[in-house]
């Protein structure tokens, strides 16, 4: 089957209405599309921008949470716990990099130290039993470079870091290869429902579908309003992050979490699967859903917090700064609602855990289908998939003698800082979902994402993208 991926300038396919259409190709929408792809359904995935995972899903902290600190009894707590298992297994099958580095929740004063036993009890209530308390000495032994004054820690050995980019890419690739139609550059502008059919007015014409699934992230409230519901409002909560150079990686072993306060989870220091160190995020409630810019105040705050947690980190070079927007809705839980009378499901308020929970959210959403009057049919296995190995935990192509012997393009480095080869760039440009931009290529290969930010390779990379487009 040739995959159907349409873009700006191409017509939307005609034919009978889709059985299901998912709005929004973030990590949640692509996970749902992948789950739907296992069933004998005509499914479409519709995305406003020119690539998948172009919204919140490209800019998070990339932690595969255990859910130890979720609010017990919520849908989020359950789906994070299940999602962690599902995604870890999926990552194992597809080669998405995951590193189980573990987390330390560090107490910097007596009040925080006193809070740790309560957090341990909460973890137990969330069904997580491997957490344990460390005293000051054990904490310092685990993390020799942390700043002075740590009084103790709660250790959560199963917290892991994962690749935030190949995860949704794997979902979308599997979905599209199994027959889901992906329509990019296709913003949904209006919706009408009549006689059991939705008509979607998009920037590229109209689409008809039986069931509609709203996974529009920050705009899930807007899509719901187009459906005639005014039940929640998404307020973006910005998180700014600083990515430090790979040469800082040896300074930190675990995800270093602060003890949570009323103001949120707080600023953490975490390794990435690419071998960098992250510092962030901030938590700023805003009104502008496009406000992904960084600010002087935000960066100053991060540096101040980071200096306390890991003083030597601040002497290292910064590789990148970015910001993501969490879809806060004023409710400490996901807002997943099925409306059988209108044949729609809203998957809203997927705030700060959506990457982890994505596969469990998808299973849960598909379990709601029969209730909306759609029999999804028997599930089948999806064709196996191998994702490019972007993680530093395993040997990358430039270190694989066998691979280079078979194809010398894997021995030619184009992006020096990230050690991305000609072969990998070619593969990405000819993949099922090829990138259209330098950023899209970076998310698939890491090319251009390194410390020089294009000083050495930027022009060469752009030449390859332009070459592939023409």
């Amino acid at each position: 089957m040739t995959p159907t991926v349409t873009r700006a300038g191409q017509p939307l396919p005609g034919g009978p209405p889709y059985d299901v259409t998912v709005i929004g190709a973030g990590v949640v929408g692509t996970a749902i599309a992948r789950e739907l792809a296992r069933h004998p359904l005509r499914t479409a995935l519709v995305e406003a921008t020119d690539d998948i995972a172009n919204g919140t899903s490209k800019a998070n902290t990339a932690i595969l949470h255990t859910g130890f600190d979720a609010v017990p009894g919520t849908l989020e707590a359950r789906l994070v716990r299940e999602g962690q298992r599902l995604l870890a297994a999926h990552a194992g099958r597809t080669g998405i990099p995951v590193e189980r580095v573990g987390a330390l929740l560090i107490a910097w004063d007596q009040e925080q130290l006193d809070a740790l036993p309560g957090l341990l009890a909460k973890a137990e209530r969330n069904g997580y039993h491997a957490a344990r308390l460390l005293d000051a000495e054990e904490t310092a032994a685990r993390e020799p470079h942390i700043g002075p004054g740590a009084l103790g820690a709660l250790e959560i050995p199963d917290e892991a870091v994962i690749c935030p980019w190949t995860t949704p890419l794997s979902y979308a690739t599997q979905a599209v290869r199994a027959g889901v139609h992906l329509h990019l550059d296709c913003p949904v502008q209006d919706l009408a429902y009549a006689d059991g059919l939705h008509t979607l007015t998009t920037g590229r014409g109209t689409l008809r579908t039986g069931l509609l699934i709203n996974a529009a992230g920050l705009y899930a409230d807007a899509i719901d309003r187009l459906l005639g519901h005014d039940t929640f409002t998404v307020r973006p909560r910005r998180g700014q992050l600083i990515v430090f150079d790979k040469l800082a990686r040896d300074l930190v072993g675990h995800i270093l979490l602060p003890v949570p306060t009323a103001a949120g989870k707080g600023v953490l220091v975490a390794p990435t699967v690419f071998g960098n160190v992250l510092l962030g995020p901030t938590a700023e409630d805003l009104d502008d859903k496009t406000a992904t810019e960084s600010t002087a105040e935000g960066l100053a705050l991060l540096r101040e917090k980071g200096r306390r947690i890991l003083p030597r980190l601040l002497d290292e070079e910064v590789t990148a700064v970015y910001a993501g927007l969490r879809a806060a809705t004023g409710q400490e839980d996901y807002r997943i609602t099925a409306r059988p009378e209108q044949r729609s499901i809203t998957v809203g308020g997927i705030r700060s855990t959506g990457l982890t929970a994505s596969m469990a959210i998808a299973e849960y959403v598909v379990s709601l289908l029969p209730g909306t009057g759609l029999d999804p049919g028997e599930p089948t296995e999806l064709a196996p998939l191998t994702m490019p190995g972007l993680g530093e935990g395993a040997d990358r192509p430039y270190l694989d003698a066998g691979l280079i012997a078979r194809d010398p393009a894997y021995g030619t480095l184009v992006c020096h800082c990230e050690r991305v080869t000609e072969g990998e760039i070619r593969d990405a440009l000819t993949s099922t979902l090829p990138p259209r931009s330098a950023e899209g290529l970076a998310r698939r290969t890491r090319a251009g994402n390194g410390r020089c930010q294009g000083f050495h390779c930027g022009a060469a990379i752009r030449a390859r993208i332009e070459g592939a487009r023409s």
Partner: protein
Amino acid sequence: MTRRERAVDILVVGAGPAGLAAAAGLAAAGPLHIEVLEREQTAGGIPRHCAHGGFGTRETGDLSGPAYALHCAAEARRAGATLRTGLTVTGWAGPRTLDATGPGGLERITARAVVLATGARERPRAARLVPGTRPAGVYTTGELQQAVHLHHQHIGTRAVVIGDEPVSDAAADTLRTAGVHLVARVTTHPPRPLAAVRRGGGAPLLTRTTVTALTGRPRLTGVRVRHEDGRTATLACDTVVFTADWIPDHELARRGGLPMDPGTRGPAHDPAYRTGQPGVFAVGSLLHGGEGAGTAAREGRAVTAPVLRHLATGAWPVSGPPLTVEEPLEWTAPNLAGPGGTRLLLRTARRLTAPLLVARQDGAVLHRHRVVRTVPPGSAFPLAADWLERADPRGGAVRLTIGG
């Protein structure tokens, strides 16, 4: 994993002006197996894309960057060095054993002496923590030059250049060549005394001015700036070039465990270009960021004698105490005391008029020298270094200060 293991006499990493000069000098000295590894497809380093004059030696006369790159590579080859391009050194397997990747496979090369000449780059926008959006149209000079001169890419229409150093002039020239209108140049430094006669192509130079944010998405629409006195403005443009603000490409040096200098952020080294790792030398921009190609080549030539001496005797004298600087000085290279030095390079954070340099060790004055000119920030100035011989090799740090 299968790696082809080999041995050479001298391995040079990086075929820029510094590495190529070192290779040429060493190869001319005798029947040694000298190999230069270069990760780019062509040798020559940064000058490959500096498509303007100002390069060359007394023998060659004025050359363009690309011609100079060819000249340096030809010299090294003619002297008998082996130049291998498209090969990246990726790490260390021993004190003088390096791993490399190329289309021919993986190699592990052991040398009797290693010369690191991996160069430097300009800090990109993110590393300077300039806030704002992440639009297209943001460059460093290195990327801009490659885009224009090697790939003939479309740049934009209106540009702002950040920085006021020699490389900033090169960025402005490249923009003009590409038909981009230069809106302004921005620097945190005060105006130069003879601003009227300086270059700049008519675009205003905003001095004492800091970039506070970039705006626009997906394409840059403006650069927000703030003057020291509090005035702010937004410069409308679709292109911005961040120039200078050098950081040595020191990954290999650091991965090899070489002690680093906190000022230059390059490997700590003595006047004979010896690093803290026996048998490992370092030259060029790796030591101090983007000084001119002539300086890099000069260091490459100057490393020849110490390397040959090391090969002949196997000796690796313990380096002297560190050379440290105090504000407004930013760094000195070399930054370890030791014999054989002819000059130091010093860099200052602000303009100095006829500064008096004083070197002290353990409280005693080793040397005083008045520089009878004005030294600008942004490019290093030299200081004769024969007095370094007088430093007590077992004494404390040698401190360089300005005045009194």
